[in-house]
């Protein structure tokens, strides 16, 4: 994939732990510790993992909402980490975010019209107020809301409708990439599928690229072309969505997938129970980060970090089992 829209290379975000009166740095929380992936135009890249594995931090670092510690973020070939403030603000037109909590992501004192107009005003996209209003109405229709409700406030909408407003705000500037940070996990199951279908439709229509962050594997499978599985700040396995689900390579992916309920009562599947808790990213285990919880742990796993390698075309895994 040479013409990938977004290329993330060895992205790192370490938060310092400060101690004592002098606030000296006593350690690092390695929230994101060397994440690399690519997203092509019109493609959806799913990022899954347990809570606390750094997937949201990774998403926000890509947009520089949190300044990354290291790594490259190439968007359309340009490293956005090198952009100055003003250039970055212009670049924000191209990349947007949809938040998890639709109750916190909309300014409660703005009407829907103001919420959707603001990005257009900031980027001076439409000259006249009438044109802007037309565009606001269009956006609302696009996400499946009635334009007649544009002068209402967020508190007058349900969770699913607010999430649609959030999506409309992201679309207001005609972005190429949308980072969807668990966009449906705060919604009712019945509403989840509506919002997912909407995202799907929009992608086809506008040729959008998504980085879809979630902890729910069935949701990610439904929408993603390719998936990266994150564990403790690192991607442990990456591949085409179908292949990854049919034949998970990494023991962690296998454990995660075995926990997805199968809608067929006849099918019996071996359930792999993960032992122990997610280790602290401030003090990750030696060797392979996953070895204390791994069912296939070998001697080498305790001492040496596994290499990130392509086992099949387009299929990457970081595990000693495939050395």
């Amino acid at each position, binding site marked *: 994939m040479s013409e990938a829209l977004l290329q993330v290379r060895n992205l790192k975000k370490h938060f310092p732990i400060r101690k004592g009166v002098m606030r000296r740095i006593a350690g690092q929380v390695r929230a994101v510790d060397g994440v690399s992936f690519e997203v092509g135009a019109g493609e959806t890249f799913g990022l899954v993992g347990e809570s606390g594995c750094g997937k949201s931090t990774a998403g926000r670092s890509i947009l520089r909402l949190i300044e990354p510690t290291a790594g490259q973020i190439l968007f359309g070939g340009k490293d956005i980490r090198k952009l100055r403030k003003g250039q970055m603000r212009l670049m924000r037109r191209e990349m947007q975010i949809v938040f998890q909590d639709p109750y*916190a992501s909309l300014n409660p004192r703005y009407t829907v019209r103001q919420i959707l107009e603001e990005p257009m005003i900031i980027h001076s996209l439409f000259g006249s107020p009438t044109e802007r209003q037309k565009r606001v109405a269009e956006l*609302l229709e696009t996400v499946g809301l009635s334009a007649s409700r544009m002068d209402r406030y967020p508190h*007058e909408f349900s969770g699913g409708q607010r999430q649609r407003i959030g999506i409309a705000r992201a679309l207001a500037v005609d972005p190429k990439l949308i980072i969807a940070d668990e966009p449906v996990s705060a919604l009712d199951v019945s509403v989840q599928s509506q919002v997912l279908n909407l995202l799907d439709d929009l992608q086809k229509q506008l040729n959008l690229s998504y980085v879809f962050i979630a902890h729910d594997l069935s949701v990610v499978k439904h929408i993603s072309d390719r998936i990266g599985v994150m564990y403790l700040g690192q991607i442990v396995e990456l591949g085409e969505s179908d292949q990854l689900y049919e034949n998970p390579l990494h023991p962690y992916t296998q454990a995660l997938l075995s926990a997805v309920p199968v809608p067929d009562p006849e099918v019996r599947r071996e359930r792999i129970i993960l032992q122990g808790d997610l280790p602290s990213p401030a003090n990750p285990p030696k060797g392979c980060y996953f070895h204390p919880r791994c069912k296939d742990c070998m001697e080498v796993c305790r001492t040496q970090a596994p290499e990130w390698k392509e086992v099949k075309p387009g299929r990457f895994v970081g595990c000693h089992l495939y050395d």
Partner: protein
Amino acid sequence: MAASVVSKAGVKSGGTVVKGKPPSRLAFERFMRNPLAVAGAIILLAIIFITVGAPLFTHYSPSVIDIMNTNAPPSAAHPLGTDPSGYDNLARLLYGGRVDLTVAFSAGVMTLVIGTIYGGISGYFGGWIDNLMMRFVDVMLNFPFVVFILFLEAVFNTSGELLLITVVVLTSWPASGRFMRGVFIQLRQQDFVIGATTIGAGAWRTIFRHMLPNTVGTLSVLVSFAVAGYVGLEAALTFIGLGLPLSVASWGGMLSEASNYTAMTTQPYLWLPPAIMIVLTILSVNFIGDGLRDAFDPQMRS
């Protein structure tokens, strides 16, 4: 962008645009349902009315003495009697309220304006800016306030409303600045504020359009408690002789005047009225503050 994507929300489009109820209107409705807050508002309005409209209720001036008629008990001519200097007590009480309320409200509003701007900048930018600004607040918080008043009175060789307001503002803004910093830090983490950054809004737009309007609830509560505090502060300072000069009519001044054994035991008409006014003002402002806090709290829905 064609509007052809299927409308799955099941909402029919078209028709007239419906206006929503703004959050401020909802807050007002909630406030009006709180009996204590409404009572507080009515009492405060009544106090403001009788002090601003003082000439309607008495034809005496608060600064003219009747030297032949000092220490008179209440009578038809002087409903609250006269004080040891021969001032009419009712006139002192009514006109004195003007001074008290002016000092309290202007100092309250100014403290909050300074505190909000200072705390807003400190909380929004964080890092070393925040650190530097908060260390300065630490210094100001520990400033010996009484010494400061004595110093200013000595330097400017004056005492009066303006000096009192200045002193109160100069010594009170750090506390509200620190408080507002906390409010802004909390808001900074909110998704809609982060969302403002993602659509390309700059720092000032984010602070003034997205964060500030969402501090209105906290702000109005702070103002009301500050005002209540300053009414008491004025009385206390004047009582110990550091506030307003006795030639200026004020509630604290009246209390100070009556602080002797004879007045306390035998002339309640000298000190009871101003004491009641001070208590009523503080109570009503506090009730209003409580009502505003509940009204602006998004968790409270009824």
